[in-house]
């Protein structure tokens, strides 16, 4: 028996508890109908934006991408704040939190596990909407120069596959619910995310005109105007996706992580409605942070507000990938550090607030 055995065992137990609570939070959150509805709305809106366009100025792809990212941020915020509200505030009200804390679980562990659970839900959502955004951008009208046709062409197949993926996911979830009595919400949520990932992977096998690379190879690739990718050689798999969106989406995920932490902290004291309202307010003020700061002395209300709130402009860089631009990974790393700092501060405040909270 070594003296540090007890400590490491306690640490192991805390990790196990964190994992168990986070997992329960994740499952509990995604089985809620509203979580699935939010994901469905975000994915369908993103996929349908390229379809329902009435004006075209050659920027269809950009519009689809920006819409997808905006959906990711707004719907993600609602999902994160709503989930945190229900899982923390709701459990405190109905006594589930008291039951869990009646076991040898520390309050800090409980709250951090809840925050991790909320973050996990947000990440799943983010993955689904990111894939839908990639599909929407690929599916939107692009100018191509082909042997038989020159002009704007929509990648209808990709969009149809994206929407069909959602439909299939719903059918599978319904079948699992009917035959296996599995929870519909969980199956549907995971299914929709999975379907979008699979369609994203599948897009590598065909070009914008629907010609299969494994059958036609480089010729098809060049004919479709996508010759920029491979000048020579047999192309078997070439996803025509704008992968430069991923760093931008990662920044949005960091913003969502901040909201997940903030909402979890707020939910220790407030019900879901006010939590959601405050998060929405922080989003608006955070996006206006730059404007607030301009010309404001530091020791003024405006200066303090701008200094205390997370500057969300750091996480909203859609324009950076327009016209072939890209975001440096170094910047993404710095943004991650900034987001992490915000999360730690918010969760620290949340832990303090939760420590003094009556659970009776």
């Amino acid at each position: 028996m070594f003296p540090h055995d007890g400590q490491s065992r306690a640490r192991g137990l805390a990790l196990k508890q964190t994992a168990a609570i986070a997992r329960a939070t994740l499952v509990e959150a995604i089985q809620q109908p509203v979580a699935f509805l939010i994901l469905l709305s975000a994915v369908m809106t993103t996929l349908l934006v390229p379809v329902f366009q009435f004006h075209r100025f050659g920027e269809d792809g950009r519009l689809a991408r920006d819409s997808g990212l905006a959906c990711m941020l707004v719907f993600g915020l609602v999902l994160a704040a709503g989930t945190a509200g229900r899982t923390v505030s709701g459990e405190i009200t109905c006594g589930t939190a008291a039951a869990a804390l009646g076991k040898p679980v520390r309050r800090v562990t409980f709250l951090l596990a809840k925050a991790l659970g909320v973050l996990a839900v947000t990440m799943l959502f983010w993955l689904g909407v990111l894939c839908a955004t990639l599909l929407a951008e690929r599916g939107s009208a692009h100018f191509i120069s082909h042997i038989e046709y020159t002009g704007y062409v929509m990648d209808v197949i990709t969009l149809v596959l994206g929407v069909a993926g959602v439909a299939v996911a719903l059918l599978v979830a319904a079948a699992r619910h009917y035959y296996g009595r599995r929870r519909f919400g969980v199956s549907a949520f995971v299914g929709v995310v999975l379907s979008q990932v699979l369609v994203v992977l599948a897009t590598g096998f065909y070009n914008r005109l629907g010609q299969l690379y494994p059958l036609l190879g480089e010729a098809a690739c060049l004919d479709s105007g996508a010759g920029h990718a491979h000048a020579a050689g047999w192309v078997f798999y070439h996803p025509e996706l704008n992968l430069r969106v991923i760093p931008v989406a990662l920044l949005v995920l960091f913003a969502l992580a901040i909201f997940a932490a903030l909402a979890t902290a707020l939910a220790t004291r407030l019900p879901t409605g006010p939590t959601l309202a405050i998060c929405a307010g922080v989003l608006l003020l955070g996006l206006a942070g730059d404007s607030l700061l301009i010309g404001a002395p530091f020791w003024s209300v405006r200066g303090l507000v701008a200094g205390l709130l997370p500057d969300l402009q750091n996480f909203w860089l859609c324009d950076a990938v327009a016209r072939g631009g890209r975001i440096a990974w170094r910047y993404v790393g710095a943004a991650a550090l900034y987001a992490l700092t915000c999360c730690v501060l918010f969760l620290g405040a949340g832990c303090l607030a939760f420590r003094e909270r009556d659970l009776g």
Partner: protein
Amino acid sequence: MPSKLLHRFFAASARRIGGVTVLAVRAALRTRTVAALLVLLAACVLVLPGVVKGDGTPEGELHILLTYTLSFAFGILCLATLWAACALFAAEIDSARIQLSAVKPVRAVEFWVGKWLALLVMNAVALLVVYAGVYAQVHWRMCRDGWEVIERPVSRHVARPLLPTPREEAREIFADLQARDQLPSGYSERTILRVLEQKAHEKYSEIPPGGRQAWRFQLRRPLHIGEVIAARMRFETEYNTRTQVSGICRLSCVETGRAVEVPLDDFTLKEIEFVVDARAFGQIPTEGVRAFELSFMHTSDPKRAAGLLLRFRKDVALLTPGGSFWMNMLRAAAVHWSVLALLAAFGLALSVCFSLPVAAFVATMLLVLTMVGNSVVQVVSEEDAQKWRNRAGVLVSRVVHSATRRALQAKPLAALTNGERIDTDMLRTSLGWNALLFPLLLAAASCAVLRRRELADTE
């Protein structure tokens, strides 16, 4: 005695409805929902006008105070009403509290009306507070900045030119196109007529330099001695040129045969407005005069000046005194209140069908769909609407538009900002549809669901 029994029946019913209303109001007051809402509204009314920068003119300041502040406050109230309504039944069913009330001799409709009334009362109070705050700010600005009499907010009756209705005009153009065999192919008669009617609403007509245009008016309320009448024309110039434009406006009273001519040469604001005292039209009978003619002669140099473009139905108007500004604000508040009444009814209808999060989500999505749908209907061309990929979206938008057209017809803030009196028709239409007919339908549907729904579960 039947009448006595009836009276007792209604008295008991009123008490039950009152009980439900008081409970809902108490819930809102004691759960700090109203306090949070009032803080938001106060921030909106007090902070927003200071943050948004105007153009420095009294009109600009007034525009910000009325349009921005009231729009924001109204938007907040819309969302708050919708979500609160979604919570009223759903939360009570989820928490099983409704079981205690449902076993009492209360009808579903009494529950529904009681909760709806609670929302109406709270909205009325909130709207009054907001409008009073804005009115106080307008007054404060007037005093502080010393606005001229002409710059002060007013309320005036609006008379538009006597023109064929858009439908009549559409039919005339259709007949003309048909006679010349120039109807577009591939479209049904109904579609063509609809497009023509839409275009008639927004149609611009040109008054070229050297040209003249006259319009006839019939005032709804006669003009009496001692009152003033204002003529207003708004216009665009070709290619937005800023060249010097000049003209002569002539306003004549048909009944007395006297006219007033006003030469005009300041067109920089793209709006002409001049006020004429009624005495200028000669001997006005005691019962007042109603028929007027306004003409405009474009006297600029045809070689250098541009033509004026006007939408006759919208841009030309005669304005006569129409009560005080604060009464007009009250009427605008009533229109807004009626829309909130409809949203409350809509939220309650969803609340009896779904759990709170789902109801709130569906309500928000439908609200967004309504806004998007109405915008799509306005901007989409018939050519775009015919494309297969747009068909579903356009169809949904048109359905949404036709379902909500009457509810959203009234534009109280535009009227307030333009100094136009919100007429009784607008008020009656808004209150009738939004606060009466639609809620009645929604109440019937909700009660049908509530009666059939099981209010307990397996526990």
